[in-house]
C-alpha cells in the first residue's frame, strides 16, 4: 500500500510527471533512430508492444530513481537511473536486430569479437529478441517495485507505514 501511495505521490508532482513524459519521448526517439540505422521494418505487433512496455517501464524507473537521488543522494538511485537508460538502449538494439543489424555488429566488433563470434551473438539476438525484451520488462518491474519501497521512506505516507510496521513488531 505504501508503495502505491508513494507511486501516486511521485507521479502527481508536475516535475516528475514531466520527467516521465520527456524520458518516454527520448527513449522512443532513440529507439526510432536505432531502428532507422538498421533499416529495420517493424513487422511484428508483439515487438512493438514489448518495446512500448519497455520504454514505459524504463521511464517510470528513471523517475523513481531521480526521486531517490534528489531526496537521499543514494548511490542505488544512480544505479537505477543508469540501468533505465542502458536497458532501453539495449532493448532498442535487440528489437531492431532482424536480417541486418549494422549498429549491433559494429559494437560487437568494437569490443573485440571476430566475425564468427559476432555472428553467434547476432543470430542469437535476432532469434530471441522477443524473449530478451520480455526479460528486460520483468526486471524493470521488479526494480520499480524495489525502488518504490526505497522511495517510500522519503514520503509522508511511506514514513507512516514504516513507523506502523516498526511499532507493531
Amino acid at each position, binding site marked *: 500500500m505504501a508503495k502505491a501511495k508513494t507511486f501516486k505521490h511521485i507521479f502527481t508532482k508536475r516535475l516528475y510527471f514531466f520527467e516521465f513524459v520527456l524520458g518516454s519521448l527520448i527513449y522512443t526517439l532513440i529507439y526510432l533512430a536505432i*531502428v532507422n540505422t538498421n*533499416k529495420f*521494418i*517493424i*513487422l*511484428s505487433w508483439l515487438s512493438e508492444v514489448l518495446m512500448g512496455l519497455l520504454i514505459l517501464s524504463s521511464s517510470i524507473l528513471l523517475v523513481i530513481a531521480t526521486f531517490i537521488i534528489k531526496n537521499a543522494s*543514494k*548511490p*542505488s538511485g544512480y*544505479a537505477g537511473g543508469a*540501468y533505465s537508460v542502458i536497458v532501453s538502449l539495449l532493448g532498442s538494439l535487440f528489437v531492431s536486430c*532482424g*536480417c*541486418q*543489424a*549494422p549498429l*549491433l*555488429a*559494429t559494437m560487437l*566488433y568494437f*569490443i*573485440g*569479437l*571476430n*566475425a*564468427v*563470434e*559476432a*555472428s*553467434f*551473438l*547476432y*543470430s542469437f539476438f*535476432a*532469434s530471441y529478441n522477443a524473449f530478451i525484451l520480455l526479460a528486460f520488462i520483468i526486471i524493470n518491474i521488479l526494480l520499480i517495485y*524495489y525502488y518504490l*519501497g*526505497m522511495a517510500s*521512506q522519503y514520503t509522508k505516507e511511506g514514513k507512516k507505514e*514504516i*513507523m506502523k510496521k*516498526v511499532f507493531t513488531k
Partner: protein
Amino acid sequence: MADSKENLEKEIKEEKKEEKKIEDVVKSLKIISWSALAIGIIAIIVGILAITSLPKTSAPTSVTSVAPVTTVSNASFSKAIYVNGSLITPSMSLPDAPVITQNQSFGSRLTNINEPLNASELAVINNASDSYFEQAGLMLLNGSIDSVGVQPQNAPLLIVNGKPSVIYLGAITCIFCGENRWAMALALGRFGKFNALFKGYSSFGDGDLPTLYWAPAEYNISSGVDFGNFYNSSYINFISMDYASPIRQGFELQPLSYFIQQAESTGSAPYIAALQLISKLNNFQGTPYSIWGRFVVPGADAVDFGNVNPSQPPIPLEYMTHEQVLSQLAHPNDMFAWREYAAADLYIAMTCASINNTAPICALPAIQKIESVNGY
C-alpha cells in the same frame, strides 16, 4: 519537573530506537541493492568472457579436400586469393520441399514456391535491356531515385578456377534478402546467364515477399544451408548460399561457424574459401551479405519494398505476385522497378571495376559514371 524531564528522556530514547530501526532497514536495502548491482556486473563480465572464449576452430586453417587452395589467412586487399575446385550445382527439385501449386492468401502464401521460372520469365532476368540499366543509372546519378546506395568495403578478389567471384550469403526467411535478390539477379544477368531460377518467398514472419531463389529451397527443414545455383558466366563465378529454416515461421540465422561446417561437408573448396574470406574480413553484420569482386556490400544496397517504402506493414511488395514483379521488371515504369535496376547498377559497377571493365555492360556511360563517382 522531574517527571517531565524523565518523560522527555524516555521519548528521546524511543525516538533514537526508532531511528536506529529505520537505519537498519535502510542499511539492509542498501546491501541488497549493491549486491544486485554487483551480480549484474559479474553476469556481464562472465557473458563477455564466455563469448570471447568460444571455440575458434570453426574457421579452418587450410583446405585440401578438393584441390590445392591458397588459404585466406594472409588475405590482403591488394592480393587476390586463388582457389581451384568445383562449384556446387544443386538438384532441380527437393522431395522434402515440393512445389506448392494451390493459391494461398497474401501474408501466408507459398504459391508456386520452388517452381522454376519458365523461359519467358527467365528471359526477363537474362535478357533485360541495357537501356533500362542506363536509364536507372542516370536517375540514380541525378538524384531522382532514393533509397538506393551503399558504402562498400574492400576485399581481396577471390579467383576461382581463374575467374573473379561474386559471393552471396543470405537466408531464405529474410525480408531484405528477398527484396535484394531481384536486383542481384538483374546485375548477374549482365555478366552471364541463369539456366534456372526459382520462385520463392521470405518467411511469413518477415513479410512473405515474392522473391527469387538461386536453387530450390529447403523451406521445411529446421536448419540447413542451400548451396549453389545454375549460373554460368565467362567473366565471373557466382558462389551463393542461403540459410534455410521453416519458411512458415520468422527470420532465423545461424552463426558463420555453422555455414563453415556445412560448406566443409560439401567438400567444395571454393565455398569453403569464400566462407573463410567472409570470416576473416570481420564485417559480417547480417544478411544479405555479398562480395562483388573487390567490394563487400554488408547488407542490401537498396530498400525497395514497392513504390513507397513503409516502416510498418502493409508492405506493397507483399501484395505482389512473381508475375507482377517480373512484368514490372520487363517494362519498368514505376519507382519500384527503377530502384531494382539502380540497385543492380551499383552491383554491376563494382563487378566491372573488379574485372577491368571487360564485360560489354561495363561500357554503358551510366555504369562508367557510377564507377568514377563512387571511386570503384
